[in-house]
C-alpha cells in the first residue's frame, strides 16, 4: 500500500497520579469532528485522561471508540462516567452522552482553561471548518463566526497537500520555512484549485518546500480575513490540528502582528475538554436538583 502522508498520529494519555475511584464527579467530553474525534475525562474538574483518533464513517462508533481508548488502562467503564457531553459536528451521534452542546461554546470553555482567563480571541482550525470566537473572562462566547462552506484553511486541506507533495503531515510546518525566500501565496483559496495550482508550480520546477510555503501563507491569509470580522485582541490562541503546524501558525502571527498564547495542553482537545467542563457543572446541577 502506498504511504499515507496525511496520516497523523493518534494518541491517548492519562494522569497516573489521579485515582478516579476517589473522585466525586467524573465527567466526560466527546468531540466528534469531521476528521478527528477527541475524548476527555475529568475527575472533579482535573484533567485525568484524553485521547484523539480519526473519525470513521460511523459517528456513533467513532464516539465509542475514542472514549474507550481514552479509558484504556484506567479500569473505567462508560457506566462510571457521571455525566458526559457530546460536541462537534457529530455531537448528536454520541450514544452515551447525557447532553449535546455546540462546539463553539465548548471550544471557548476549553480554551479558557487551557490558555487562562485572559484569552479573548480564539481561532479553531478544525478538520473541515474554521471558527473565530471572541471570549469573555468567564469563557463565555461574546462573538463568533464560522466558515464551514469551504475547505480552504482547514486541516483536511493540509492533508491533501501532504499527500500531493509526499511529505509527512507532521513535518510540513517546519519544512515550509526551508525556502530561500517566502514565495507569493497560491492564489486559489479552494483546496481543489490550489492543488491544481501547486501541481503546475511543481511542474515549473518549484521545490516542494516552496510550494508548501506558498500554500501555508495562502491558508494564513484566508483565516486572518475571517478573524477580521470579529474584534481580534492580543490574548489570542489557535486550537485544533493546524495549531500544531508551525508553518501556518507563524504566518498567521506575522500577518496579525501578534504572538499566539502557548499551553501545556494538547491543542486538539479544547472542544472535548470544554464539553467535560460543562459536564461537571451540569452533573452538579442535576445532583442539587435531585437533593432538593
Amino acid at each position, binding site marked *: 500500500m502506498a504511504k499515507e502522508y496525511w496520516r497523523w498520529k493518534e494518541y491517548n494519555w492519562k494522569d497516573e497520579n489521579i485515582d478516579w475511584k476517589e473522585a466525586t464527579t467524573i465527567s466526560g467530553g466527546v468531540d466528534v469532528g469531521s476528521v478527528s474525534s477527541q475524548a476527555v475525562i475529568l475527575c472533579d474538574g482535573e484533567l485525568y485522561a484524553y485521547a484523539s483518533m480519526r473519525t470513521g464513517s460511523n459517528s456513533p462508533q467513532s464516539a465509542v471508540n475514542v472514549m474507550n481508548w481514552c479509558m484504556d488502562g484506567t479500569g473505567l467503564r462508560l457506566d462510571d462516567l457521571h455525566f458526559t457531553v457530546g460536541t462537534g459536528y457529530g455531537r448528536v451521534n454520541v450514544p452515551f452522552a447525557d*447532553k449535546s452542546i455546540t462546539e*463553539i*461554546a465548548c471550544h471557548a470553555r476549553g480554551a479558557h482553561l487551557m490558555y487562562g482567563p485572559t484569552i479573548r480571541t480564539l481561532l479553531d482550525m478544525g478538520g473541515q471548518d474554521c471558527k473565530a470566537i471572541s471570549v469573555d473572562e468567564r469563557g463565555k462566547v461574546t*462573538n*463568533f463566526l464560522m466558515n464551514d*462552506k*469551504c475547505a480552504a484553511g482547514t486541516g483536511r486541506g493540509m492533508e491533501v497537500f501532504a499527500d500531493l507533495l509526499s511529505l509527512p503531515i507532521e513535518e510540513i510546518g517546519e519544512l515550509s520555512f526551508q525556502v530561500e525566500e517566502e514565495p507569493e501565496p497560491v492564489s486559489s483559496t479552494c483546496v481543489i484549485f490550489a492543488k491544481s495550482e501547486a501541481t503546475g508550480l511543481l511542474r515549473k520546477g518549484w521545490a516542494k518546500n516552496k510550494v508548501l510555503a506558498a500554500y501555508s501563507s495562502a491558508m494564513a491569509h484566508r483565516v486572518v480575513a*475571517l478573524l477580521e470580522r470579529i474584534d481580534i485582541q492580543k490574548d489570542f490562541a489557535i486550537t485544533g490540528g493546524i495549531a500544531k503546524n508551525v508553518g501556518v501558525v507563524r504566518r498567521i502571527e506575522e500577518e496579525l502582528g501578534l504572538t499566539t498564547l502557548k499551553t501545556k495542553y494538547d491543542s486538539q482537545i479544547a472542544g472535548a475538554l470544554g464539553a467535560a467542563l460543562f459536564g461537571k457543572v451540569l452533573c452538579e446541577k442535576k445532583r442539587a436538583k435531585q437533593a432538593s
Partner: protein
Amino acid sequence: MIANFGYKDATGEFYIAINTDKCDGCGKCVPVCPSGVLEVRDNEFDPMADEEMAAVTEEQRKKLSFSCSECKAGGSDNLPCVLACPRGAIVHSW
C-alpha cells in the same frame, strides 16, 4: 453575544448577525421572512442560559445570498426582518 450566521465564499460575505444582548426571543422576525430563514430556539452558544434567541435555521445558513435575494431587491434599508425587530438585534453584513 453576537452570533454571526452565514458564510464567506468567492462571491462575498453573507452573514446575519444576531445580538443576543438585545434579542429577547420575541419571534417577530420569524413570520415576516419570505424564505423562512429565521427561527427562535435555545441559545445553544451559552449552555447555562435559559433564554431563547432568534437564529438562522441550519437549512438556510449556507445559502443566505440566495435565500435573502428577494428582500435585498427591495433595498438594504427595507429588510423585513431588520424592520420587524423592536430592539434592533438583527444586522446583515451585505
